[in-house]
């Protein structure tokens, strides 16, 4: 899977899902609009999603195992498009955990 080209109308959503409890508040969905980010932050967000690509799987969550769901909503050739990744909690990259938990975006400076 490759990263699509992402314009300023892109939004990124990260939530933690599954698990025995599955209470609504535990997902702690974080939504980030690219329009609110500068170029460096956008690059940082793309690098987080790229990190997730090799560890993403359709089959996650069995037996109450928690997982992260990463959604990219973007425009492709004038139509709405989305990229959805699911990542098992024990395979989640550190950058994704930090983004979800603290809103931390890795930077290159």
């Amino acid at each position: 899977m490759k990263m699509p080209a992402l314009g300023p109308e892109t939004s990124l959503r990260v939530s933690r899902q599954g698990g025995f409890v599955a209470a609504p508040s535990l997902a702690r969905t974080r939504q980030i609009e690219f329009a609110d980010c500068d170029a460096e932050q956008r690059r940082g967000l793309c690098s987080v999603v790229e990190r997730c690509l090799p560890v993403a799987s359709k089959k996650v969550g069995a037996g109450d195992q928690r997982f992260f769901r990463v959604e990219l909503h973007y425009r492709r050739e004038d139509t709405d498009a989305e990229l959805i990744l699911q990542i098992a909690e024990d395979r989640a990259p550190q950058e994704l955990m930090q983004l979800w938990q603290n809103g931390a975006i890795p930077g290159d400076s």
Partner: protein
Amino acid sequence: MPIHTFIPPYILDRIIDRGSPYQRGCAQQTLHHVQSLPPNPGPPRPTAIAELGELRTPGHAQRRIHDAEQQMQLPGNLRRREGQPASGDAAVDEAYDALGATYTFFWQVFQRDSIDDLGMPLIGTVHYGQGYENAFWNGEQMVFGDGDGELFQRFTRSLDVVAHELTHGLIESEAGLVYFNQPGALNESVSDVFGVLTKQHALGQTAAEADWLVGAELLTDKVNGVALRSMANPGTAYDDPLLGRDPQPAHMRDFIETRDDNGGVHLNSGIPNRAFYLAAMALGGYAWEQAGRIWYATICDPQLPNDADFATFAGVTLNHAAQLFGRQSPQVQALYEAWTSVGVALR
């Protein structure tokens, strides 16, 4: 790597936003700790499990309780094996006792020898992660967190939760219900069913005496709620400013179509949960003797497809009720009424 942070908008961030400083500290600590750990090496190797399996003793569990010592590596240090005295660690000893009670339930009621009916050792890990608010089955063993201490206590406190996780293993070796949409919700529901039946069996409770709650011992007294789920009245277990409101539907008219949680497997399980409760209450006595027997025969039936929806599953329960108790039996009638009451149309 230097990190730039900014505060993005939240849709739902109630625990982080409104949580006490202790809760936030807990989350931060977990993150910091996880950062310093190598990648999770995964569950114990199948060969290690086969070695343990050589000690097969039908009628007697083979338990191994490990301690992850707040890390997230499995299985962790072995703290108590079968026959050893209490360790003095509450989580270790609760897991040991609860896995023993679950083994005893399946052996005494269904003559089943462990998860795979081949005497598979029951491996549990406690003290997994820091403030970890979950319990799970990873395909080879059960894992229990300590909870954050503010909303959740340690997950070994509830016998039905430990039995729920073990039942996930049992379902994998029988019906293999796909963990997605309706078959996934059935997977969750059957785990709740045998979770509460294990507890009722251990306490010697009839259907009428039982509370039909899942995870009643997990919530701290700061939470406005009685448990994590209610099989009798799905959607009423908690309503709390921090935790949110119990989202389970109790009837097909409220079935939740969602892409989250693998299609709402922990949400729509409320519907078959209530069907089981209604059937068990109508039949009276010990729930494991009639309704439980029918459900057990259903998940062990090779004719049950692994992608069964609610209606297909309900149909198979009716077949087994007829086989076990007769076509004109009150059991068949009770099941028919239970499924109909929750809006599952029988084909």
